[in-house]
């Protein structure tokens, strides 16, 4: 009974908050409603027994990604409403609705098939975080390491793109790029 109530509360609030994210004209409203919707989504993960995933959702999405967006918004003018030219709104909603139907069919196809078996079954008596750790560091070790390298590359890319030569543009002339490269090489020595 509690599960039903919790599901519907989370579902309605997530849909409303994400509608605000997709429709709002103000960047600040869109960002705060996105952050709140992600908190609600972590509620679904706790309901589904994926405790560790819910905690990761809270820390990474609500904590890190939203803070990154908030910092990036300091570069853009976030106070005024953005003006967007909408060509054909009816066509957009029609395409979106058709897309949703296609996805419901795609998601329900494996349930109708009923041939899926659990590769790494959830064992009773072991906590979610422990079992996630066991599978992550045995079967998924290589993707885990690749993801770590990818995050390092993304961090360096973010620093280079946003941080170097803050006072003038990186992309207008080639000289500046070479200068920036030389500076990076000099600093690394």
């Amino acid at each position: 009974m509690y599960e039903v109530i919790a599901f519907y509360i989370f579902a309605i609030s997530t849909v409303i908050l994400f509608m605000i994210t997709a429709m709002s004209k103000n960047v600040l409203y869109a960002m705060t409603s996105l952050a709140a919707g992600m908190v609600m989504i972590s509620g679904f993960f706790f309901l589904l027994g994926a405790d560790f995933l819910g905690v990761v959702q809270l820390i990474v999405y609500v904590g890190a990604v939203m803070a990154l967006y908030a910092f990036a918004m300091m570069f853009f003018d976030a106070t005024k409403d953005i003006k967007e030219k909408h060509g054909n709104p009816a066509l957009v909603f029609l395409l979106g609705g058709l897309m949703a139907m296609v996805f419901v069919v795609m998601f329900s196809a494996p349930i109708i098939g009923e041939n899926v078996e659990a590769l790494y079954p959830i064992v009773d008596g072991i906590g979610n975080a422990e079992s996630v750790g066991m599978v992550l560091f045995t079967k998924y070790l290589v993707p885990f390491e690749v993801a770590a390298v990818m995050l390092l590359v993304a961090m360096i890319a973010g620093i280079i793109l946003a941080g170097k030569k803050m006072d003038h543009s990186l992309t207008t002339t080639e000289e500046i790029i070479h200068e920036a490269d030389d500076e990076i090489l000099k600093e690394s020595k």
Partner: protein
Amino acid sequence: MIGISHYLILSGILFSIGFIGVLRRKNLLMLFFATEVMLNAVNIAFAAIGNYYGDLSGQMFAFFVIAVAASEVAVGLGLLIVLYKKYGSLDLDVIATMKG
């Protein structure tokens, strides 16, 4: 009782909200928000299907989706800042330089 179909229908609704956002947004930052909505919708579907089959693979995939989303945001925001410095705007109609 709440079954898997509830979660999948919710995930489909959220995905279509994100997709409508991607289709109608002209501001690049708002476009990023819409892609985050889509990624979160897919994560719910992964967790729900994993729970339905008693399988941990769904949660594993959701972890990697979160890692990819985090790095996408880091690189994408760096590129947005460079674009904003160059054009003074994030509107796709202003930034677009190719005809057609």
